[in-house]
């Protein structure tokens, strides 16, 4: 199905700009190719899109519904609006919900200054969270010799789950429970250090947008993420 889409050339408008694209491209990729920035959190280049964070929602003319730019394919004649006041308002409120959900103490976080959530707040002009913080009591798992998982900072973007299942192929991570009780886990919700499936490759660490997963031994602000995973995904090939 995608091969037929890939051969189609479609034209569309994003924020008034005429764009040309292949039929198998997403609104997000076309927008970025054309220098239009749509904010994202759960999207990660090289991983399957799941449309979970809802930060990249855009308006499409003629539809009352909003569409996740990361997981919606472009179609002929589409007119996309990426930054209306309504979208800005929704994005900010979604961020507020995220901040209120867990325990994000930016000031003392190992990712302070290198955190996508923190940067997003600044970018979208979020100066405070109007919703009450929930203050759940969450665990820190430091049983792994090299990495630490801190549920307090997890935004459930599932990047770790996807990178581990799709790129590393180990599928150590998954999500347990549901709703507000959902948590990222390793194996049978066992201590990470006891995992029989983890290869300690560190990909989950480097795709994590916050410091829900980080390298052990880092002090505040020291956890800088590397961006090798997207390249890894792009460079995959069958040898011979």
């Amino acid at each position: 199905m995608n091969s037929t889409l890939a051969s189609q050339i479609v034209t569309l408008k994003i924020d008034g700009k005429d764009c040309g694209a292949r039929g198998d491209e997403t609104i997000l990729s076309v927008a970025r190719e054309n220098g239009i920035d749509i904010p994202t959190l759960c999207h990660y280049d090289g991983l399957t899109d799941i449309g979970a964070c809802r930060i990249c929602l855009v308006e499409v003319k003629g539809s009352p519904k909003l569409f996740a730019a990361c997981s919606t394919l472009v179609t002929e004649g589409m007119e996309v609006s990426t930054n209306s006041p309504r979208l800005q308002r929704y994005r900010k409120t979604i961020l507020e919900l995220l901040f209120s959900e867990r325990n994000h103490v930016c000031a003392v976080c190992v990712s302070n200054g290198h955190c996508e959530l923190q940067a997003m707040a600044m970018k979208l002009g979020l100066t405070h969270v109007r919703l009450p913080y929930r203050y759940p009591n969450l665990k820190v798992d430091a049983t792994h010799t090299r990495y630490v998982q801190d549920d307090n900072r997890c935004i459930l973007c599932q990047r770790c789950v996807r990178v581990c299942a799709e790129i590393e192929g180990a599928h150590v991570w998954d999500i347990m429970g549901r709703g507000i009780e959902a948590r990222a886990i390793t194996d049978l919700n066992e201590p990470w250090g006891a995992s029989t499936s983890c290869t300690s490759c560190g990909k989950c660490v480097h795709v994590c947008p916050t410091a829900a997963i980080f390298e052990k031994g880092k002090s505040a602000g020291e956890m800088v993420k590397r961006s090798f995973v997207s390249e890894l995904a792009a460079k995959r090939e069958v040898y011979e």
Partner: protein
Amino acid sequence: MSQSISVPVTASGGKLARTITIDPVTRVEGHGRITIQLDDKGNVADALFHVTQIRGFEKFCEGRPFQEMPSITARICGICPVSHMLASAKACDELLAVRVPETGIKLRRMLNHAQYVQSHALSFFHLSSPDLLMGMDAEPQKRNIFGVIEKHPELARDGVRLRGIGQQIIEILAGKKIHAAWPVPGGVNQALTAPGREKILAVLPEAFTIINRTLDWYKSVLENFRDEIRIFGNFPSLFMALVTPHDPDEHNAMLDHYDGVFRFVDESGNVVKDNIDPRKYTEHIGEATEAYSYLKSPFYLPKGYAEGMYRVGPLARLNVIDRTGTPKADREWAEFRALRRGVILSNFHNHYARLIEILFALERLEQLCNDKGILDPHVRAIASHNAHEGVGVIEAPRGTLIHHYKINDEGLMTWANLIVASGHNNLAMNRSVLQVAKHYVKGAKISEGMLNRVEAVIRTYDPCLSCSTHAAGKMPLVIEAVDPQGNVVSMLTRD
């Protein structure tokens, strides 16, 4: 507009009692209040210094990776975050059980000295100079740094500038003035650059000029405060501070703001206990809780509670040492110690001691800047945790600061205890408040100036209530009536 003075209230016993409330105690770093308890004749029966906020660091750091502790505990206090960071980093060094590179230690020392400059400047110029310049009886609206700016712009400018220089050096070293996450377990996370060193060297001369000018001025007006010197916390007590490790017979224990061993001296200057390994602090220091304050009262264990009252801080440090170790400060120190035979007892002299310590810090900064190895890039030992328990002790501007951590096999905090400068001084502060209150608060007539003196005596300790409230903190003044059984029959707080 001043303190509310309550109307007489009927105590449970039918007696008249009167309470005076000073709330908050202003111009000290933190939250606190003072209760002066009067008897039915209007005389001061007792005075209590309450620390009124608790924040819970000892509990809520539980479960965090210990590497985050320097930054978390820095948030105990924005005035001396460096002290907490360093004490914390030192405790963490012990958890790593590695040798911190020499340069790493030197850079931490520089950071600490820079913080002495800014913190002591803040205490002296911003918080205490209004009393010194305008007198204890000046109108309260003007008795603050803004009044100083108006009336004594030169001195105010000196103060602002000197504190600014301290902060600037911190920024050059650590990248940020307040709460920079530069000290880390095993050292610091960035080496000093050559341009950075030049910048520091460039600002030092001005700082020397200011501190010399201020010392000269202060010594010239010292006579004006004879009363205060006599009354403000002038009583015998023990003194404690870190000093350089030494041979007790050589009398060469020097001032060390970053490391060393504990020494206790008594009111006559006799060494009570020497060369105490700070890791074993619990063998010498106990902590007691009082029902009226969120600040605990540490005491010297061998002497028991509350006879084991001791003081820490600038005055204590200059009292316990045999010399400072830098030429200019040594000269000033000798002159200072000549004020009285034995040791200096009046807490008022903390102001003086602070100025000398600024001078010492500037000298040390200059020495370290010119140290050959100071630009060495090897500033951090990398390791995972190798021990389950660590104690980090440092001299914060206000006195000795102890961080004590325990971690589990994974490196997560399981327990912490913190003793801060104002804690050590708690017993002495209460004693001082009572001393001043008894002297100044008499009968029905209570003047603004009298109450201000009660506050001012606390100010001589420069109690960092931010620090003391790491456990929980705040500083309003309250006056309450307490019956002979110790029940509060009335309490006035003023909001």
